[in-house]
């Protein structure tokens, strides 16, 4: 090669990556209209110029032969799943859809269900569903990490995930739990590396040591599903040794608040209130009591000069026995000793103690004092912001278990005891968080909210604060198809997408007509019990009608899911469309203030691809959904960019999809009139808007008067009341009370009462995951989990010629000793069997996995012929999917089945499954099992080339 080259002129366009949901800023370099190079945008706050393996492979996504290029309909008479399609026009697609949807809308809107996967446009999809009038809408959260969102938000008013994270710039000790490669992909990598270089200590708690854990200073292998025990034992030790931040607990949490312990009282287990205001809105009024040490009597919390007892028991003047919440916590963790936890977690008791001391002593002795003056919600002025530099990060290793909610509550409480909430070096919120506990959004609580030809009266997803907020019928049965917000999963704040197909197929709670799936591979990796679910999708009634009569899929690629569609809507790629990362959904905010961002097309749509956003606007206009039409009933928005600029949540609200450059000339932020030049302004600023809060608003935001009032003025929140941390959760207690027949709220159906009474414990507790309780553990002794590979995004990168070379098939990683005991050699073909099913795959010995756990990379295995790979591709023949071993339902009493989910949030319990492994017979095929009949390429797709020698623009 010649060193001295002059590169042909390149055009550079900035936009936002979507090779995963992390949303890094990218620069797309084009030569002769072809993508030459995609690198990180150095001026973007999120990734600061770096990019990951997926982001760098965007070219191969753009030019992938698996891309769908034409709207398609299932060939009449063909089975679903066979992948037999014919091309149709967009006009036919729209006509079919709008005719069908109009009929549903004027009869029973809930017969239309819209569920979306790993997308980033819930602001629009949610609006569409609501306008349509169906309650049956949710995104991926339920099968993803709702436990993390709910467990944290119901405890500290914010969460890991997109809503907050560890402040590694200032932390000294960083404990990462159950995280392989989170959405905070590049930012997390940047931060960990910097943290390590600055001499921070990094501990990873994970059954497996890969990815981030690889570079931890200490790896603490743990048995899956047992983190609750570990965290509670650490809490036990912190309290026993006095390593908690007392001042923080007193002032910023409900630790000192007195709990009514009169078991006969309707308010049993609730905080004692001085008076109850007319309307308890979605904030907490300051009407609870402390028992003051100085005056030795109950006083209003935060009374000047008062210092509450955190421990002890007291009697109110009317004789009501009460205890401070902290006392109850201490009682709760009394028996959760490190020795007890050692048995459950497999972590030596000494290690547990040492971890507790490391956390406690670092938090106490390495305090950070920043000279930042601020005022708290009670008017007290502080000269400094203090930080106890112990930071945590946790994700699906905690979330994806059916005991995850309580485990995550335990983590929230541990962080609270250490005094690390929204403080330097600890956990930091990201706008629009913190929010009241729970946040104000509510679903309707009656089926009457669903009316023909009307928008849904309320939000399809919300944050119940008590049983009266549940979205149930008179008889307590669910209104939603996924049974979210029902007594089965009361706090299922993200829905239960993983049960939609099974429920709709069975007609429990009812049949639906049309299911629209956007950007989710529900026939493969985002479904449990994959083999059966695929059958359900193709199952017909006696009269030959499909049990799920009409299935529409919008996807950019030919996936396992599109094969089952009746109608396929080909989406554009992220390089071909407008998109917003909206404050109304999940923005990309930083610790120091709100940030939102956009995608701006750098290429024209390929083939006949159409952005789903445009599809929704078109459909909304055709169906005359109120927000999409003008007074005359005509189309209101030209297209999606026009919609983004001009749509306001209510006429004149000044709140829209984008928060930056609002107001006629772009002079306003968060609220302001539509700005016709808003897109240009985003484009000029590297595709994002970053509002930096004044320093005094950047910390302690749960109780920072300045911040809360700012946030109220900006209409980020309605109330500016302090958000006390829920060490003790009244919300949970309200459900428990209802289950015990107490209280004034609705009561659960009898068969669910004890379930609710058990799991809705206002203090965290440890229980074995539900599936484990129903498993014969001698027969199935091993836990099976998956990890995200850093170079693959779920199922969608096998069509990517570069990425698939890194992971074209997967192995089951087994601890060397476990494998040898089972007579399994490295590389052997083995069977992995759970009580629900079995798969054949290859084994790989490993020293980096806890002996009771086996694991594999997620979603590498593919169905033959999907993703326009040849049917004998490694993905299909050697790759395998763990999902075949996981059930979407668990047996409940009698005939009843219950989702394999957390009983509180409905979070899919992916990582609860227990398996056994044994060698495959020597005469068995050396091929993964199960296998599926190969899919045919869809019409309009490019042929897959035998060779690829990509060169942007013409070579020489």
């Amino acid at each position, binding site marked *: *090669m010649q060193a001295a*080259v*002059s*590169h042909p002129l390149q055009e550079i366009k900035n936009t936002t990556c979507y090779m995963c949901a992390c949303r890094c800023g990218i620069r797309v370099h084009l030569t002769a209209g072809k993508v*030459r*190079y995609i*690198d*990180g945008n150095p001026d973007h706050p999120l*990734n600061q110029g*770096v*990019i*990951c*393996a997926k*982001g*760098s*492979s965007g*070219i191969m996504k753009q030019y992938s032969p698996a891309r769908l290029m034409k709207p398609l309909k299932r060939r009449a008479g063909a089975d679903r799943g066979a992948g037999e399609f014919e091309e149709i026009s967009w006009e036919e697609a729209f006509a079919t859809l709008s005719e069908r949807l109009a009929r549903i809308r004027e009869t029973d809107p809930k017969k239309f269900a819209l569920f979306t996967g790993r997308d980033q446009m819930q602001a629009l999809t949610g609006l569409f569903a609501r306008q349509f009038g169906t309650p049956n809408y949710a995104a991926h959260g339920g099968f993803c990490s709702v436990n993390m969102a709910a467990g944290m938000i119901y405890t500290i008013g914010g969460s890991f995930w997109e809503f907050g994270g560890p402040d590694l710039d200032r932390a000294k*000790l960083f404990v990462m739990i159950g995280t392989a490669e989170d959405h905070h992909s590049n930012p997390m990598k*940047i931060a*960990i*590396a910097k943290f390590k270089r600055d001499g*921070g*200590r990094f501990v990873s708690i994970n059954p497996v*040591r*890969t*990815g981030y854990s*690889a*570079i931890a*200073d200490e790896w603490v*292998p743990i048995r899956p599903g047992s983190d609750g025990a570990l965290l509670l034992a650490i809490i036990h030790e912190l309290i026993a*040794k006095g*390593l908690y*931040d*007392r001042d923080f607990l007193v002032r910023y949490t409900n630790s000192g608040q007195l709990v009514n312990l009169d078991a006969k009282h309707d308010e049993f287990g609730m905080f004692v209130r001085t008076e109850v205001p007319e309307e308890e809105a979605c904030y907490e009024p300051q009407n609870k009591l402390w028992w003051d040490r100085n005056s*030795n009597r109950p006083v209003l919390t935060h009374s000047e000069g008062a210092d509450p007892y955190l421990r002890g028991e007291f009697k109110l003047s009317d004789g009501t026995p009460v205890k401070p919440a*902290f006392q109850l916590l201490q009682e709760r963790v009394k028996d959760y000793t490190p020795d007890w936890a050692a048995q459950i977690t497999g972590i030596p008791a000494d290690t547990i103690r*040492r971890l507790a001391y490391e956390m406690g002593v670092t938090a106490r*002795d390495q305090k950070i004092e920043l000279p930042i003056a601020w005022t708290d919600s009670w008017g007290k002025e502080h000269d400094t912001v203090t930080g106890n530099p112990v930071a945590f990060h946790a994700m699906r290793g905690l979330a994806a278990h059916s005991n995850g909610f309580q485990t995550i509550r335990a983590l929230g409480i541990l962080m609270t005891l250490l005094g690390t909430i929204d403080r330097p070096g600890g956990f930091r919120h990201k706008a629009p968080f913190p929010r009241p506990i729970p946040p104000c959004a509510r679903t309707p609580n009656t089926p009457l909210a669903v009316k023909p030809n009307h928008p849904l009266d309320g939000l399809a997803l919300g944050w119940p604060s008590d049983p009266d907020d549940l979205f149930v019928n008179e008889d307590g049965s669910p209104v939603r198809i996924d049974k979210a917000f029902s007594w089965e999963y009361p706090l299922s704040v993200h829905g239960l997408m993983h049960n939609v197909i099974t429920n709709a197929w069975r007609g429990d709670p009812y049949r639906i007509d049309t299911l629209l799936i956007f950007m989710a591979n529900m026939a493969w990796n985002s479904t449990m019990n994959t083999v059966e679910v695929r059958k359900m999708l193709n199952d017909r009634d006696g009269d030959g009608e499909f049990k799920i009569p009409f299935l529409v899929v919008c996807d950019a690629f030919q996936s396992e899911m599109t094969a089952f569609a009746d109608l396929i809507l080909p989406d554009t790629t992220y390089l071909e469309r407008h998109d917003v990362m909206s404050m109304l959904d999940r923005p990309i905010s930083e610790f120091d203030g709100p940030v939102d961002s956009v995608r701006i097309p750098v290429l024209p749509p390929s083939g006949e691809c159409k952005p789903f956003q445009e599809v929704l606007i078109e459909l909304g206009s055709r169906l005359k959904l109120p927000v999409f039409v003008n007074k005359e009933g005509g189309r209101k928005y030209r297209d999606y960019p026009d919609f983004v600029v001009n749509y306001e949540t209510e006429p004149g609200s000044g709140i829209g999809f984008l928060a930056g450059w609002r107001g006629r000339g772009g002079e306003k932020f968060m609220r302001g009139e539509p700005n016709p030049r808003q897109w240009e302004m985003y484009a000029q600023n590297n595709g994002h808007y970053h509002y930096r809060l004044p320093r005094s608003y950047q910390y302690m935001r749960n109780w920072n008067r300045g911040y809360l009032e700012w946030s109220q003025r900006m209409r980020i929140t309605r109330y500016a009341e302090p958000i006390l941390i829920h060490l003790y959760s009244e919300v949970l207690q309200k459900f428990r009370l209802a289950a015990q027949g107490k209280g004034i709220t609705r009561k659960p159906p009898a068969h669910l009462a004890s379930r609710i009474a058990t799991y809705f414990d206002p203090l965290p507790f440890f229980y074995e995951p539900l599936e484990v309780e129903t498993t014969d553990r001698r027969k199935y002794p091993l836990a099976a989990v998956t990890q995200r590979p*850093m*170079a693959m995004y779920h199922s969608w990168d096998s069509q990517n*010629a*570069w990425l698939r*070379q*890194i992971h074209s098939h997967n192995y089951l990683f087994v601890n*060397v000793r476990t494998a040898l005991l089972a007579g399994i050699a490295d590389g052997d073909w083995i069977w992995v069997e759970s009580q629900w099913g079995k798969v054949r795959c290859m084994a790989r010995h490993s*020293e980096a*996995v*806890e002996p009771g756990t086996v694991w594999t990379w997620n979603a590498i295995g593919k169905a033959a012929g999907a993703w326009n*790979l040849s049917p004998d*591709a*490694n993905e299909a*023949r050697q790759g395998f999917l763990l999902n075949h071993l996981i059930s979407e339902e668990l047996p409940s009493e009698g005939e009843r089945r219950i989702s394999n989910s957390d009983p509180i949030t409905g979070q899919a319990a992916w990582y609860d499954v227990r398996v056994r492994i044994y060698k495959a017979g020597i005469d068995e095929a050396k091929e993964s099992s199960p296998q599926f009949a190969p899919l045919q390429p869809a019409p309009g797709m490019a042929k*897959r080339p035998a060779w*690829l*020698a*990509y*060169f*942007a*623009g013409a*070579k020489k």
Partner: protein
Amino acid sequence: MTQLALVIDLNVCVGCQACVTSCKEWNTSGAAGTMSDERPYDADPSGTFFNRVQTFEVGEFPDTETVHFPKSCLHCEDPPCVPVCPTGASYKRPEDGIVLVDYDKCIGCKYCSWACPYGARELDEKQKVMKKCTLCVDRIYDAALPERDRRPACVMACPTSARLFGDIHDPSSAVSIAIRESGGYPLMPEWGTHPANHYLPRRKTRLRIHDDELERADNPLKIDSQLPKPAQSEPSLDDVTSW
């Protein structure tokens, strides 16, 4: 004399493979391109890459280290791949020490790859010439690029900045300092190839907690273990006995 090189910090490399695909992406349409892929969508895909990230497990459970190990051409100071090349296609640039292949001269005899102990060269099965990491020679001197972009693609991509780039002969360069201060080492020193690329080892941060740190005067238990005094009116022995 200048010797450009990469210094790879195993202490922070998380094995994300960003350097692998960003390298391919930059180079396939660049002076070193194309980087072809055989059977890209069929069984057993195989393509040309200049850089691979591998994984090793060190030790036995539970004392296991998982080490991610990126490797590209090490631009040896005494490169055995160069003298063996019969055509002169393989050469080491005197001005900056980069080892390159001139595709126009290469006959694809593979001999240089035999002479490289590190497995750093790959024959492009489509163009049938030998290829390898160029240290992005077509970026680092490109005056059309802004200064901050005149770095190898893999270095720009790396999210953990585990890849440092610079002149290891300049004692004051960041790479020289890293090698000196963080124990940088070459691969397979036994062959005297003097690789220019170096690796920085894992470093561990530990914490030591002394017993007295758990028993301090400011312990909140001092307050919280003082439980409320019973009310004077509560029954006591005084009420029932008289000694």
